[in-house]
């Protein structure tokens, strides 16, 4: 690295350049704006120059602490990131067809979207499910639906990510039970359950139970998986939805890692050794519009988490310190106007995720501000990843933008500011308390409102929305979910209830109730109920009886 003397020389030369050439030019031709900032409001200087760096401690080598440049020693030279498109709609039969299509197109992992009744633990025939069945994902009421969902897909050969939170333990149990029927032991399963309840209270909204029993269910899955599913990611601690709700990049890192700290603390408190479960924690981030800021964000998050795990929690296993993450391009950055422009937005966001060292990636489809994506739009989204992987060359060296003066400066600033936020959350009593007090929600809402005002004033340009608008015909060929899905699921449920061994279901549910009332691990009892074909709504119904339901305080 450059020594201190020459750094000072460069800084002096820069000052001379600013005072001379730059000043002369800008006095005649002012810059576009008196000040520049990232989309999250971090200041951006005219030019960045070499700065004093402790390379070995701040950057180091890929696969080594503090993992700033990547979590694996060879990164994409060994294997590309997992291309994993989030998909699911209507019935298990239709979603199964879409998964097979995606696998044929070269996708390398599955990612299951569940409909809202499933995410909130209601069967499709529950009154609150009216109009929602199969809309934003697939409807799963029982093991029978899950068997259809993965029919013909060998579960020992794909990794499956499931976006499921409040009832994550139940859906994981169903997945284990389907694998058993395929003859695949649970030790061979790989995949992820999102299982991140804290961000549901703060940003995403699909909670069921109050925080305390929810945290217990999560710890139960940590413990169960450590014994029976060694390759399973037991949680995907998610900043994605925090960002979608309107946070800045710094807030996304800070609130996500604060949630992570809370999960680690509760598991340690339950008696688990940090190095038994921490290697299976995974993360999920957004890739938003501001290209350099996003790359810096991923790098900063990696370094910060490594330091937290080592210094705060005394982790010994380097795997416990590795922040492995999935990325999805920013859904809320897509515009309904001139939807083809979204192809370009998604490509830039996907590129940022790759340059930031993501482990897996979902690219949004250009029509998602309008409806669920069609097969055609999903294919373009997947091809975007393949072009980055196979054609752009950026995957052939590790952390190719590392050492960029601007990127390193942004990485340092995001890390520092996120740490300040984490300290504020700590002072409020940690993430669960900060959420209960509405602090995190208010911070996110403030940022969302500030951004909206900036767009409406024209200070932030959104191409095709507040600048460069055009008259256009309404888009055609949107995917529509058949409204009869609700009735169909209802009929399937009625038929299942008539066929199954009712005594076995009732015995399993009674056993689950007594385990939930005590302190034991709930996973074995949930698995037993699932195998007896108790429905998701019945299982969650028992847990609702024991745990109660979360009622949020509303603050505007």
């Amino acid at each position, binding site marked *: 690295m450059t020594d201190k003397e020459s750094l000072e020389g460069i800084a002096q030369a820069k000052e001379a350049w600013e005072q001379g050439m730059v000043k002369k030019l800008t006095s005649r031709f002012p810059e576009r704006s008196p000040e520049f900032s990232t989309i999250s409001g971090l200041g951006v200087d005219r030019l960045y120059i070499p700065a004093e760096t402790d390379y070995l401690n701040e950057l180091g080598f890929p696969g080594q602490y503090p993992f700033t440049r990547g979590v694996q020693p060879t990164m994409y030279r060994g294997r590309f990131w997992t291309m994993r498109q989030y998909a699911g709609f209507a019935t298990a039969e239709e979603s199964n067809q879409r998964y097979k299509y995606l696998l044929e197109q070269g996708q390398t992992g599955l990612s299951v979207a569940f409909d809202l009744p499933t995410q909130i633990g209601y069967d499709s025939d529950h009154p*609150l499910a009216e109009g929602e069945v199969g809309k934003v994902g697939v409807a799963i009421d029982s093991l029978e639906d899950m068997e259809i969902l993965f029919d013909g897909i060998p579960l020992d050969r794909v990794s499956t990510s499931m976006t499921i939170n409040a009832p994550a333990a139940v859906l994981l149990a169903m997945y284990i039970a389907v694998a058993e029927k395929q003859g695949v032991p649970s030790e061979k399963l790989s995949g992820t359950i999102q299982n991140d309840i804290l961000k549901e209270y703060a940003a995403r909204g699909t909670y069921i139970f109050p925080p305390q029993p929810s945290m217990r269910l999560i710890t139960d899955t940590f413990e169960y998986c450590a014994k029976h599913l060694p390759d399973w990611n037991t949680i995907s601690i998610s900043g994605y939805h925090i960002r979608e709700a*309107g946070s800045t990049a710094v807030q996304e890192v800070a609130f996500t890692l604060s949630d992570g700290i809370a999960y680690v603390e509760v598991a340690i408190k339950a008696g688990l050794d940090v190095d038994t479960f921490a290697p299976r924690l995974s993360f999920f981030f957004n890739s938003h519009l501001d290209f350099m800021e996003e790359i810096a964000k991923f790098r900063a998050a990696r370094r910060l988490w490594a330091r937290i795990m080592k210094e705060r929690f005394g982790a010994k296993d380097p795997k416990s310190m590795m922040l492995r993450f999935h990325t999805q391009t920013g859904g809320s950055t897509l515009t309904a106007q001139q939807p083809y422009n979204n192809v370009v937005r998604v490509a830039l966001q996907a590129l940022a995720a790759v340059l930031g060292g993501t482990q897996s990636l979902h690219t949004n489809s250009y029509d998602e501000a309008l409806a669920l994506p069609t097969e055609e739009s999903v294919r373009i989204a997947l091809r975007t990843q393949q072009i980055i992987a196979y054609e752009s060359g950026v995957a052939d060296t590790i952390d190719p933008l590392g050492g960029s003066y601007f990127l390193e400066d942004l990485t340092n600033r995001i890390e520092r500011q996120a740490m300040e936020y984490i300290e504020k959350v700590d002072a409020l009593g940690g993430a669960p308390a900060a959420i209960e007090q509405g602090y995190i929600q208010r911070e996110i*809402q403030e940022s969302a409102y500030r951004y909206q005002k900036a767009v409406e004033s024209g200070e932030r340009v959104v191409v095709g929305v507040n600048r460069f608008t055009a008259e256009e015909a309404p888009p055609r060929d949107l995917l529509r979910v058949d409204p009869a899905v609700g009735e169909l699921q209802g009929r399937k449920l009625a038929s299942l209830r008539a066929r199954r061994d009712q005594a076995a279901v009732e015995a399993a549910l009674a056993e689950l109730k007594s385990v939930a009332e005590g302190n034991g691990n709930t996973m074995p009892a949930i698995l037993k109920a699932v195998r007896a074909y108790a429905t998701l709504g019945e299982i969650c119904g028992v847990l609702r009886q024991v745990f109660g339901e979360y009622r*949020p305080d*509303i603050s*505007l």
Partner: protein
Amino acid sequence: MLDRKIRVLIAKPGLDGHDRGAKVVARALRDAGMEVIYTGLRQTPEQIAEAALQEDVDVVGLSLLSGAHGTLFPKVVSLLREKGLECLVIGGGVIPQADIPALKEAGVAEIFTPGTPTSAAVEFIKTHVRV
């Protein structure tokens, strides 16, 4: 013209948890001088109609991004009318253009789709509500 603020109920029917838009609109309407009540998530059409009655609002704004608007918006309108409430009903969210005529037919006065400035909702309410 009476010297009274326009009262608005912003509601999230169905199970959808995305309320960034609802909250941003609520803030913008409040900044435009209206009184705004936000119901929070997961409200049934019955709960929304009841809240509109209790709060004596001039406007009910419905926000939904899950695709269940075709079922839930008309249900809210008909429950409001059953209660004798003639308040203005508007909606927003991820709603395909093709669905809008049916929603208007059902009594939703206007649908605001993604990218609409909040000022458009403010203007619409001010021109359609007399207090």
